[in-house]
C-alpha cells in the first residue's frame, strides 16, 4: 500500500475514534451527527494527506460520502427553516 494511503487511514481512524468518544461522552443521540462528523473526518484526512494515486472505487466512495453529507446538511437546514 502507498505510504500516503497508510497515513490517511491512520489519521482518519484517529479522528473517528476521538469524535465518536467525544460525542457519546456528551450524550449525543442523533445518528446523523455521528455520520456527518465521520464524513468530515474522512475529508479532512484526505485533504491533509492527499494520496498521490487511488483507485476507481475510492473515487466512487468520495462521491457517495459527499452526497450523504449534502443530504444530512440539507435536511438539517430544512428543519431549521420549517421550525
Amino acid at each position, binding site marked *: *500500500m*502507498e505510504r*500516503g*494511503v497508510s497515513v*490517511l*487511514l491512520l489519521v*482518519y*481512524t484517529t479522528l*473517528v475514534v476521538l*469524535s*465518536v468518544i467525544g*460525542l*457519546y461522552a456528551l*450524550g*449525543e*443521540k*442523533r*445518528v446523523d*451527527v*455521528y*455520520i456527518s*462528523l*465521520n*464524513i468530515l473526518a*474522512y475529508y479532512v484526512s484526505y485533504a491533509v494527506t492527499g*494520496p*498521490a*494515486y*487511488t*483507485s*476507481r*472505487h*475510492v473515487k*466512487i*466512495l468520495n462521491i457517495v*460520502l459527499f452526497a450523504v453529507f449534502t443530504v444530512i446538511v440539507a435536511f438539517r437546514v430544512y428543519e431549521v427553516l420549517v421550525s
Partner: protein
Amino acid sequence: MNRLLVLGVNVVVVSVLLVVYGILLGDSGLVGIGFSASLLGGVLVAYSTTPRDPSVVALLNYSNILVDAVTSTLEDLDLLESQVCSIKRGGVTLLVYSRTPCPLEVDPGVGFAGGSPYLAIPTTRLSTLVESASSSESTSSLLERSLAAVLVDELSACRSIRVEEEADQYRVYITGLADVFKQYLERPLDPYTLLVLAVSSEALPATYIRLVERKIARDSILLVLRAEKSGAGS
C-alpha cells in the same frame, strides 16, 4: 484478497451487530457509533483496492532493470539526446528514438534509418480506449478522454489530464504525478511520455506523432505533440 479488505469487512460486520444491539436497547447513541464504524469499514474496503506494496516494489525493481538495459542501449547508440515519436503500423505502435525527426522506415528493435541509428520499441494495443462520443467531437477532446481513461482511471498514474489543441499541435498537461513514476522523469524512458505517445497513436488519426517539447515541474509535466498524417519528418 488483502488484509485491509478483511479488516474492512470485519469492521462492517461488527458495526452492523452494534447497530442491531443499539436498536434493541433503544440507545440511538450506540446506533450512531455503529453507523460511524460501518462507514470506517466501508472506507477500509474501498482503500483495499489501491495497489499493494509487494507488487509495486517487485514491479519497480523489474522496471529499473529494464530501464537500465534500454538506457545502456540508447547510450551505446548515442541516442541519449535523441527525439522520440510514435508510428502507427498495422495493429502495432512503434515508439522510436532517433536523432532524425521520426524516420518512418523502421522495424522493431535497433537499426539505421536516414543515416542515423534508431531504437524502435513495439507496444501492444492499450486495453482502455474510448470511442468518439459524436461525429462533432474534436480530436483534442477525444485525446483527453482517451488519456484520462488510461492514465487516470486505469493506471492511476496521475490525478488529471488536460489537452489543448493549437494548429496541428496538442499540449498535454499532466498533473498530480504518481510518486512511483516520478523517479523515471529524468530518464530517457519516461513512462508519461511513452504512454501519452502510445495512447495518442491509437486515439488520433495520424501516421506518426512527434514529441516537440517536454517541460517538467514539481508535480506536473507538459508534453507538446505534433500529429502528422504522412511523409517522413525531414
